Structure formats: C-alpha cells, structure tokens
C-alpha cells in the first residue's frame, strides 16, 4: 500500500528520506574529504541527521541531547584537537601503503554485510507500546531507578577522564 505523497504518512516518509540523505551525505563528507576540518563538518552534518531521525521516532529528548552533546560539544572538541594536530599539507605529502586501502575495503564490506544480513533476516519485534510518555519526570525516574547502574558507570568514566586530563595538564605545567 502506497500512501499518496501529500497525505501525512507520505510527507512523513519524504521527511524520513531527507533525514537519511542528510545523515548519509554527512557521513560521506566525513570519510571522503582530505581536510580534517571538513571531516568534522561532515560529522556534524551526520549528527544533525541522526538527531532528526530521533525526532522522527518521537523521542525529542534524545534528539536534543544528540545536538547538544555531539554537535555542540564533541565536534567542537574534535575541532580543537585538530588545531593541535599536524597540518594537513604534511599529511597529504605522506603516502599511504596500498595494503591499508584493501584492508579497509574488506573490513567495511564485512561490517556492512553483517549489518545488512541482520537487518533483513533478524526477527524484529513489533513496535511495542511506548515505554513511557517521554516527559522529563519519567526520564529522570527511569535514569535513577531502572538504569541507575548505567548512569553511575558513565559518571565513573567521566570522572576518570576528568582526573586524567587534570593530571596531564598539571604535568605539562610543571615542565615549564
């Protein structure tokens, strides 16, 4: 059954396709360009597409968090890291061995084959009723009850990262 283009279902489908296109184009820019800063821009476009997909799947909270954390924080952090890395010109002059390209093709092919196989042949559960109403209160409650273990583990990872970066920064300062 094909809904007509201008019915709500048809428009939703068009928006879904646009979001998929944005995600794919972002991913392609991120991987194919030679300049690192363009890769980061592509990555940001990709994240925006993914956030749109989350919004399409009616989880606006995750969509907003994706924008806030991945585009606003992770991409900016990567951009700062690029400023400290070696310049693009030096990297372009260096030649990659032919083996790495073949290896990448094999790995990429294997992963995409596995994912495609799982997507086509897997037994997908019917979309269950929505777990909760997606309100702030419900998210907070489930984070602190059902998923409290995950929540605590993530906070430990972040704590370790902060302590590590502080230790590195202190060591650098003493050197001067």
């Amino acid at each position, binding site marked *: 059954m094909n809904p007509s283009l201008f019915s709500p279902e048809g428009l939703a489908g068009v928006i879904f396709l646009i979001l998929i296109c944005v995600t794919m184009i972002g991913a392609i820019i991120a991987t194919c360009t030679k300049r690192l*800063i363009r890769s980061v821009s592509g990555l940001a476009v990709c994240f925006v597409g993914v956030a749109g997909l989350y919004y399409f799947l009616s989880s606006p909270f995750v969509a*907003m968090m994706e*924008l*806030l954390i991945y585009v606003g*924080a992770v*991409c*900016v952090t990567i*951009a*700062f890291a690029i400023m400290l890395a070696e310049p693009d010109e030096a990297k372009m002059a260096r030649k990659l061995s032919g083996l790495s390209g073949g290896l990448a093709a094999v790995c990429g092919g294997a992963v995409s084959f596995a994912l495609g196989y799982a997507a086509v042949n897997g037994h997908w559960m019917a979309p269950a009723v929505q777990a909760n109403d997606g309100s*702030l209160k419900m998210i907070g409650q489930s984070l602190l009850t059902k998923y409290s273990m995950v929540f605590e583990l993530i906070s430990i990872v972040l704590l370790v990262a902060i302590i590590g970066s502080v230790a590195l920064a202190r060591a650098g300062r003493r050197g001067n």
Partner: protein
Amino acid sequence: MNELIRLLAYMLGLAAFLGLNLAYLGWVERKGAGHFQRRTGPKDVGPYGLLQPLADGLKLMSKQLVVPANADRALYMCAPILIMVPAVLLFVAIPFGEHLVPREFNFGLLMMFAFASVGGLSILIGGWGSGNKYSLIAGARAVSQNVAYEIPMLITAINIVMITGSMDLNEIVRQQGAYIWNWNIFRLDKSLLMPISFLVFFICSLAETNRTPFDMGECEGELVAGYHTEYGGMGFGLFMMAEYANLVIGCSLTTILFLGGWQSPIGIFPGPHWFLLKMYFLIWCFVWIRWTYPRTTFWGLLNLSWKYLIPFSLVNLLLTALFIKVF
C-alpha cells in the same frame, strides 16, 4: 487546514519581527553608542537616522563577494549561512504571549541550548575557513568562551527546571504568577539565591552572545575584527545579524526564565507587550554595558567562568535541591 494557515501566519510574522529587530537593533546600538560618547549617532538618513539600516543593507548587498585566495572556499561560504540557521530557528519556541507561541515544545528550554551550541561550531568553521590566522585565533577564542559559559548557564537553568518541573517555556512562564514578587527572580520561597542565579544567568548570556565586556572573539585592537575579518558584503552582514538574533534570543530566555515572560508586574493586562518591554529593557542593558565598560582579558574571562561561576552554580544547584526537598 487551519493549522497550515496558522503556521504560515506565524512564519511571516516571525520573519517580519526578526527582520525589523535585526535591522533596528543595529540602529539602537549605534544611536546608544553615539549618545554615550556625546555624539549624535546616525542622523542623516531619514528622521533621527531611522532609515540608516535600509541604507546599510543596500550597501552590504551591493558589495562584491570576495573569497580570499587561501580560504577554504566551501567552508568559507557555508559559515555565515550555518550561523544564521539556528539563530532564526530558535524563535519558533519562544512564547511571546500565553497563546502567541509558534510551536510549543515539551523540551523548549533544552532545544534553546541545543541549537545555541551549534552556533559555536559555525563560528569555528568561519574562522578556520577564512585562511587568516587572526580569524582562526578569534574563532578558537569565541568557541572556548562559549563552551566555558554554557556550563554555568545550563546549571543555572536546571535550577528553574527543578522548581517548575518542566522544560516547556510557556509552562515556566505560566507558573510564575501575575505580580512581580511571583517571578522566578524574586521567588525566595523556592530558593534564597534566586536573584544571584539571575545575575549568573545574565552574565553568562552576555558572554554567550560575545558582547562586551566579553567580546574576546572580535576585539578590534588585537584581532582586526575577529572571526569575520575576511568577510565582506552580506557575509559580514549575516554574522552581524546572527549576533543580534542571538542577543534577542538570550534576552528572551532571561525574560522567560526569570522575569515572568508575558506576565504583568502589576497584575493587570498580561500579554506580549510585557514580554517585549522586558526583553527590550534587557537588550538596552546589554547596549549600556557595552559602551560603559572596557573589555576584560582572555584569562580574566576564562577564570571568571571556571573558577567562580561554575563552582558557584554547582553549589547553588545543591542548595536549591536541598531547599526544595526540605520545604
């Protein structure tokens, strides 16, 4: 069909509101600067220089677009557009009046912060894409400043979310009562530190919009004109307009969170006029501050955020939580 007409009307209305604001805030700023410095400001084009924005716009649009030789062409052209998109988009969620909201979002507050954080990346792209070291330094500065001040701003906003239990901007306004002592800034029954939270939020929004005393990104003395040094014509115009759009959004957010949005201070006639009055008062304060105080140093700026505002806002958050739990 009604919904469609409503959406179209709001889009046209927002476009008009946005266009007028972006044009005339520039005039307000120049006029204010003039009078603060005992000059007259723009006065030749039209009465009181009121047609000056029109002349400026024509001039900017008729200029040739020159791409610097060692700029990254694609990024250079993208950045002014990218910086404008989130700034314009955010107006969709602002409740101008109780029933004058283009679109009510459950997570309106979160959405504000999410899209505002995207703006930082486009500043960085513009600074990098220009192929000019001053632009690059300015871009890096502007972004590290935005990242630093986003944290205390978010934490302070969480205070409000804890008090109201909602991220819906209209709901936040609705919960603040009709009189001035019911606004979040004076709600001492919820947390004793609310006036200071307001101050922290105000300082952060000054820094987030890259305004003096925190305009490190575009300090003319050291960095020519900051991240938009290499932009001419409408490219520069878009950066300027995005700055004013962010200014309007920052002041609207402060009004909504702390000053009761469309609620009336004396209990009668609540409506969009109160919202606009409060918002323009805040914008006037921004202009006032800009032409009164000198610029801080970059270290002073970062120290203020990391050493004072962030620890303070964390303590403030804990105290608010305690207050809500105990009473």
